[in-house]
Each structure stands twice: as C-alpha cells, then as structure tokens.
C-alpha cells in the first residue's frame, strides 16, 4: 500500500523529508536530473508539484526545465497512479497476435481509458510500445511481473490475482 499512503501525505501540501534526502545525493552531479526524478518517482509513485519545485531548487535548475523533462518522457507521471500498473504491450508482435482484443477487454472490465487509474486507486492502465518479450506475445506486465501468451480471459484472471 506504499504508493497510496504516500499520496495521502502529499496532498497536504508539505514536502516529505525523504525527497530532500534523496536530492542531497544528486546535488552538483552531472546529468543528475533524470536519475533524481526516477528515484523520486520510485519512492512516491508519481512526481508531485512540490517535489518538482524542490528538485529545481536543489539541482539549481529553472523549474521550467524540470517540468520540461518530466513531461517529455513517458516514464514520468505528474498525477498519482494505481497500486498496480498494467503495462499492456501494443508492439508489432503483440498487435498481430491479438493485443487489441485484450485492451478492449481490460478497458471494458475496469472502465478505463489508456493512462487512467481506477477510482479505488488499484489499477492504472498503460499501453506500452514494446516490452521485448515478443516470443510470448501477447504480453502484459503488472508492476514488475511479466505475463505472456495471454487471451482476453486470461488477462482478466491475471488481474484478478492482484485484487
């Protein structure tokens, strides 16, 4: 429940102490912005606005630059995400082996559009370009677990196991 609890702390508007500790490590380092954002996101599940402001202050960068980088890369998120992130592969191999039907099934079952999070904060649906497990197409990842050779029904039962 780590991500969800953290979210509650952050909406109160204060900057959590951990973020300052994390940032200490990156002070003055060359090319530190992306790794710093990566570690902060791993810690909070997303990048809250006050944290971005701290990043700019600590790394001595304009906030516009921090924001520019955070919005350029697909990996960074500025709003909270679900406890489980479903990364459904929509790559070529998965596409020709039927990932479209799985996407439709998950969308209708969870009532989500790509990029959205369920109201209970459990699942975020995130289509990705390729997970590189094409031999097992169609494939999806739920957090760090990879599941392959899916059918729409199997995909749902995989999600069931994360409830």
């Amino acid at each position: 429940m780590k991500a969800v609890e953290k979210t509650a702390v952050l909406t109160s508007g204060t900057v959590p102490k951990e973020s300052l500790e994390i940032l200490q490590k990156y002070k003055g380092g060359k090319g530190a912005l992306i790794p710093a954002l990566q570690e902060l996101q791993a810690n909070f599940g997303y990048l809250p606005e006050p944290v971005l402001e701290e990043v700019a202050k600590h790394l001595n960068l304009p906030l516009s630059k921090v924001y520019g980088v955070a919005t350029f890369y697909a990996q960074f998120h500025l709003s909270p995400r679900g406890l489980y992130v479903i990364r459904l592969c929509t790559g070529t191999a998965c596409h020709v082996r039927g990932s479209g039907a799985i996407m439709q099934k998950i969308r209708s079952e969870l009532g989500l559009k790509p990029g959205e999070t369920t109201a209970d904060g459990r699942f975020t649906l995130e289509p990705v370009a390729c997970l590189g497990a094409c031999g097992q197409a169609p494939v999806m990842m739920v957090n760090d677990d990879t599941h392959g050779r899916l059918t729409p029904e199997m995909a749902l039962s995989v999600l069931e196991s994360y409830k």
Partner: protein
Amino acid sequence: MRVNSVDDLNKLKERLQKEHQLKEQTDTIVTVGMSTCGIAAGARKVYEAILKEVEKRNLNIIVKKTGCIGLCEQEVLVEVACPGRQKILYGKVKPEDVPKLLSEHIVNGNVSAELVVVGKAS
C-alpha cells in the same frame, strides 16, 4: 578475488574448466532458461518447483539458471544433463510437470517424451 594479470586469468580459467568437467562427470545438472520471455511463460515457478522437489526428495543435483536459449515458442525450457548421457532439452514445462519429469529422467532414466524438444550430444 582479483585478476591482476593475464596469467591470473588463464589460471582461473583452467581451474574453472577442470571443476566444470568434474561436475559434468559426476553430477546431474538441471538448467532453466530464465530470461524475460521465459519468466513471462512461467520459468520462475518452474525453477521454484524444481528446487522444492530437490529438497523434498533429497536429490543430489545442481540447479542452474541461464539466459535465452532462443526457442521462445517452447518456453519454459529446462535442460537436464546427466553424467554420461546426452543432454535433453525439455520444452513447455509447467510447474506441475516437474515431479514427474525429474523422477522419470533422473531416477528412472526415461526421457519424458511429451515434453522433449531436443537432445544435445554432451
């Protein structure tokens, strides 16, 4: 362990080769293909099932991991190498196949025909 010179490297290589040869002559080695593809097909569960079976039956075998063997379609891939026999590559192995596969192959000496993909000369 530090390799300070070419001589060190060659000595280490020779020692490792000798140890490996000895192991191949005396021990049964079971290797599971554990790349992302294999894991997506369930390799981690198969690996755990093998370890469990080894412990439960007190089997004297070495269990190893390796990367992609290349035959993604046949994942999960498990290679069984018994001393003095050709290596056998099993495909589409599920955790529930493990007790039977190990006992048939290692204990009874039979190759599980329905799972075998290919044999390799050892």
